[in-house]
């Protein structure tokens, strides 16, 4: 799957964009966040406070319990501050 990180989530993971294989047993965004947070301290820090994390699946805003599958583009970012 394609993963994207923005703003301070990008800074903490140290990655803007990557291709990552969907781990076994991961079916929801919640599962994916748990798997990512286990990748190292930067990722753990990025996902430490889920109240501050938003996500999109295939460029549509998504909820934690929404499904994810191989081939999806999943993005993580803080609350938006446009305008």
């Amino acid at each position, binding site marked *: 799957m394609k993963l*994207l990180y*923005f*703003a*301070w989530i*990008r800074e903490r993971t140290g990655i803007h964009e990557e291709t990552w294989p969907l781990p076994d047993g991961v079916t929801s965004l919640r599962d994916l966040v748990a798997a990512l947070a286990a990748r190292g301290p930067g990722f753990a820090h990025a996902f430490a406070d*889920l*109240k501050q*994390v*938003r*996500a*999109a699946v295939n*460029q*549509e*805003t998504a*909820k*934690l319990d929404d499904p994810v599958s191989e081939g999806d583009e999943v*993005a993580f*970012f*803080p*609350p*938006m*501050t*446009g*305008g």
Partner: protein
Amino acid sequence: MVVRVQRDDFDIGREMDALLAGRRDIGGVASFTGLVRAFSDARNVGALTLEHYPGMTEKALAAIEAEARERFDIQASLIVHRFGRMEPGERIVLVIAASAHRGEAFRAAEFLMDWLKTKAPFWKSEETPDGPQWVEARAADDNAVERWS
């Protein structure tokens, strides 16, 4: 209906003329231009850098505009949002809503701005005397917590 995401500045007069070219049914046009302020939450801001999510941004802006056209009696509308680094006084965003009636134009323009603040994938980083600081979403504007939890 126009939505655009761009690094470059825009000219509000030219945007309005292009949007309304040949129209004779528009009675009023409300616009809002957002600018970089030198002060934000009582701290000095040297400049602002706007990061966005190319691809999703355009879709989000189009969805916001479609929602405005659903809710208000407007005949034309535009959203132009910049990204990249901007200094105080520079223009960040422009929305325009045109209607036969002025109340609808005002209402639609304000709606576009309200939704842009929380539903378009932009993130602002401010250059402050203490280094760069990500702008935090205002609790009052942000109902996304419910969606997410």
